[in-house]
């Protein structure tokens, strides 16, 4: 159950990032709701997952799904650059953030 919660937390984080993209494109109430609800549900599911999973592992996976998913959503649906250097640098930031969460 904790792993399902963690997966949902990551997915809702991606929903929040999707909301950020929509805010930039549409600037309407629906986009802000998508962002707010996504981020809030993400935190709720993360805190449920943290009750039984080790904190470092849970945080690292949550960050990984959210950040990588957010970048993918931007590239697939909002025309963000797929330049290999951009992918490399995002991967560097992502890997080091996950590493820090695992060991801290």
């Amino acid at each position, binding site marked *: 159950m904790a792993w399902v919660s963690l997966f949902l937390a990551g997915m809702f984080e991606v929903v929040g*990032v999707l909301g*950020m*993209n929509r*805010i*930039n494109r549409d600037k309407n109430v629906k986009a802000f709701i998508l*962002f707010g609800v996504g*981020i809030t549900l993400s935190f709720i599911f993360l805190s449920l997952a943290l009750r039984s999973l080790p904190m470092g592992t849970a945080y690292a996976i949550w*960050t990984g799904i*959210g*950040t990588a998913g*957010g*970048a*993918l*959503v*931007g*590239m697939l649906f*909002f*025309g*963000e*650059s797929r*330049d290999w*250097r*951009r992918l*490399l*640098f*995002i*991967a*560097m*930031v*992502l*890997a*080091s*953030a996950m*590493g*820090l*969460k695992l*060991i*801290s």
Partner: protein
Amino acid sequence: MNRSWIFIFVGAFFEVIWVIGFKHAESPVSWAATIVSLAISFYLIIAASTRLPVGTVYAVFTGLGTAGTVLAEMVLYDEPVRLAKLLLIALLLAGIMGLKLIGGSSASTEVQS
């Protein structure tokens, strides 16, 4: 362009404050400061993402927030300083500098469409 990067850095600073707040806040005042910091940091990343690709903004915001929190815990709360942490923070900063350097050319022009 540069203004957006400043928004990200300041937003990450407030992210560190609310992350520490969620862990250590006890009084109503510190909880209020935590919530205000949360609002400011999200306001700033949304503002930054009007000029820069959201995927980039979010990755940098999360990464800087994590690095800042790890540093703050080491400085303020006596968490052990380890070489691995410092190396990961260096790698993270290198990635962010890379994104900042290419940000103006390829990434932000395509996102205009």
